[in-house]
């Protein structure tokens, strides 16, 4: 137990948490945007998966940033695809989302085997690249706190820093710009923006595209930093955990970040625990993030219900 605590309170663990949180954070921000626009995006999972594979394959031939952008583009295109089926052809958004997920599961394996020349499990024989880590070694020069700062802040993926910025950017967009107002209005009560001449379907379509693009960054981080290379089903439910993070974060970007961080911590625990407790089956440990998601959501809806009761009581 002591060993576990020592591990948890080490700088290395913090770095692991940031690493595991980053893909969840991007997916959660994506889920947040489409959820607030009134289209629940259950396809985050599939979008991340396809973006991850796209990024890996492109990174073989192009620089890392082109690879990341291609992952973003793949996610955005899937978002546009969903928008087309849901808004133009009036298909149910949940069904469309699951179609994307199923397409992703099968399609990535197929594409992977074509790209690798037959390997249906991993892209291990593709020389794919990684997203660079940001080296902040100069911080060490600061007296007293320098070494600690360096070990906490240095070595994170450049995308993790982007993630922190995106939380702010999404918040600013949603709550400080007219378009954010439109988006939230469309999600809450579409008749109102419609009467005001706001193109409701267009707002939703762009939200889905943005949602896909953000999930795409998450996928790229997963396959170009957390792991180098693609493994089949490597998203392992992160898209759904991200949806949970949207709800748990009370549909607010900062809340979503905190929720993603919570799930990231438990995922990081699942990473370090097998080394410390080799008597617990690895599979058990791997279920921790999912169990925590379910528990957190139960707790959340219970508390939300209580809060509603308190609110109505206080009004009378």
């Amino acid at each position, binding site marked *: 137990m002591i060993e576990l605590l020592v591990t948890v309170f080490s700088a290395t663990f913090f770095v692991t948490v940031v690493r595991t949180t980053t893909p969840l954070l991007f997916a959660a921000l994506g889920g947040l945007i489409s959820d607030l626009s009134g289209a629940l995006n259950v396809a985050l999972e599939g979008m991340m998966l396809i973006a991850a594979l796209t990024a890996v394959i492109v990174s073989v031939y192009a620089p890392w940033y082109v690879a990341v952008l291609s992952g973003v583009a793949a996610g955005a295109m899937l978002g546009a695809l969903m928008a087309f089926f849901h808004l133009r052809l009036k298909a149910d958004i949940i069904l469309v989302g699951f179609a994307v997920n199923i397409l992703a599961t099968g399609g990535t394996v197929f594409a992977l085997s074509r790209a690798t020349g037959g390997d249906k499990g991993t892209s291990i024989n593709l020389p794919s690249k990684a997203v660079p880590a940001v080296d902040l070694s100069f911080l060490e020069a600061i007296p007293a706190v320098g070494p600690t700062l360096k070990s906490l802040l240095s070595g994170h993926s450049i995308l993790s820093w982007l993630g922190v910025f995106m939380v702010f950017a999404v918040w600013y967009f949603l709550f*400080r*710009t*007219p378009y*954010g*107002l*439109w988006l*939230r*209005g469309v999600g*809450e*009560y579409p*008749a*109102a*923006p*419609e*009467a*005001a*001449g*706001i193109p409701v379907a267009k707002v939703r379509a762009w939200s889905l595209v943005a949602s896909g693009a953000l999930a795409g960054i998450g996928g790229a981080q997963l396959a170009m930093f957390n792991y180098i290379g693609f493994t089949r089903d490597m998203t392992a439910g992160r898209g759904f955990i991200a949806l949970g993070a949207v709800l748990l974060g009370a549909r607010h970007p900062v809340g979503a970040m905190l929720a993603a961080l919570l799930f990231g911590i438990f995922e990081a625990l699942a990473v370090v625990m097998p080394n410390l407790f080799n008597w617990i089956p690895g599979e058990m440990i791997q279920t921790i993030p999912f169990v925590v998601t379910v528990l957190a959501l139960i707790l959340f809806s219970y508390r939300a219900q209580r809060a*509603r*009761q308190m609110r*109505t*009581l206080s009004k*009378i």
Partner: protein
Amino acid sequence: MAPLLEAISIGKTYPGGTVANDGVNLSVSAGEVHAVVGENGAGKSTLMKILFGIEQPDRGEIRLDGKVVSFANPREAIDHGIGMVFQHFSLVPSFSVYENVVLGSEPRNGIKFDRREAIEKVRALSEKFRLAVDPLPPVGQLPVGQQQRVEILKALYRDARILILDEPTAVLAPQEVEELFVAVRALVAQGRTVIFIAHKLPEVLEISDRITVMRGGKTVGSVNARDVTEESLATMMVGREIALRVERAKGRGELACEVKALKLTAESGVTIAQDLNLKVHSGEILGLVGVEGNGQAELLEAIAGLRPLADGVIYLNGTSLGPKSVLERRELGLASIPEDRIARGLATGSTIAENLVATRLADKRFVRNGLLDLKAIKANALSLIERFSIRSGGPGYAAGTLSGGNMQKVVVARELSEQPKLLLVNQPTRGVDLGATQFIWKSLTDARDGGAAVLLSSADLSELLALSDRLIVFYRGKIVAAFVNSDDLTAETLGTYMLGLSSQDPESMRAALQ
């Protein structure tokens, strides 16, 4: 003077063949309040949707300032200075008043939404047009009358010269109607033009300068408000003389239903109503008065068995209803015409015949050995369609294909096909045309004369005053006043109690509650 807005021989046929407008003419002069009246289904709403660009006409043209215009969508109508306030408000509940007002045309500062300017603009508008609203609270927390002002502000913010109000008074209490009229007069005084859709004639006569009457998708004519009376307008609307008067009960019978110390709570535990004590005798109609949301609807639900009792008892002819299921209550002679015919009164996807027997599936006449007797069901439907003059394609048509008035008649027919002992009625004629209203009122008084005790709730005070023998007023879940109906009792008097402005002394209340 040349008219500001003209619609000339407008024709509109919906897919499916409904002719909504057929050669409609409308001519509105600048600075007037122009009322468009007609029964439901007369084509008023379609005409307004065409003027506001929601629908496009198949024939005819619209002229604004003498120039022909056509609007492909509301945005273009707004850009031409036309604003519309719908009966169902288009407001985002969690947004503040000012956010709702500026939504879609926000003041900007770079890419930033300039909140300060938005708030100032809304303040300035509300002062200019005497539409007092605080810009800051979320609209979901405001009363309906204020929400309506927000809607009007929205149109004015977009510089509407012509403001279309679609049945604006339907959701308001009498005092709120007065406030609305003050605002409408202020608008006209500042050079705006108001088109006022309505079917409550006294209000129309009070507020408007000119009146255009529509019937069956055509314009019947335009008249000056001061040249007509309520009766002559009603005749124009319906095309025949109609008497919206009903016979009062001749005398009441035994005590049928008694509610004692009833308390109702919402799922969240909040008290909806408390200390409810009332008696209804057979052969009388007891009107439940109150602004919607003050506990009347919940009382009816509780008696019908759709809502648990938190405390207290309800007796029907001496039997306590508390432990009885809905079906058992119906067997005791309870019938209920619910508020929402589409969600609760009918299965809109099922046929008329099926709907008419839906509450009688234990009846041996319609169900034998667990199988439906289709022949008997059809015969039942045919006779009820005849008796209640339901206009439909036949018993095999889906209930959802009927017009509002005929749907409501199906509900009424089902509930009254056998004489009930206790009849619960909520909003019997909401969205129903005058002809059907007359018929439904007659059906209710027939049920009363047949010995039913009737509890009637309605948002329409004139309906309550026309039908009820006694009235009780709800305010914040309590009975605050009770009256024996008479010609001296006015909507204004009821209104002051409905809004909690005055209170009745316990003596006269007790007397009227007996």
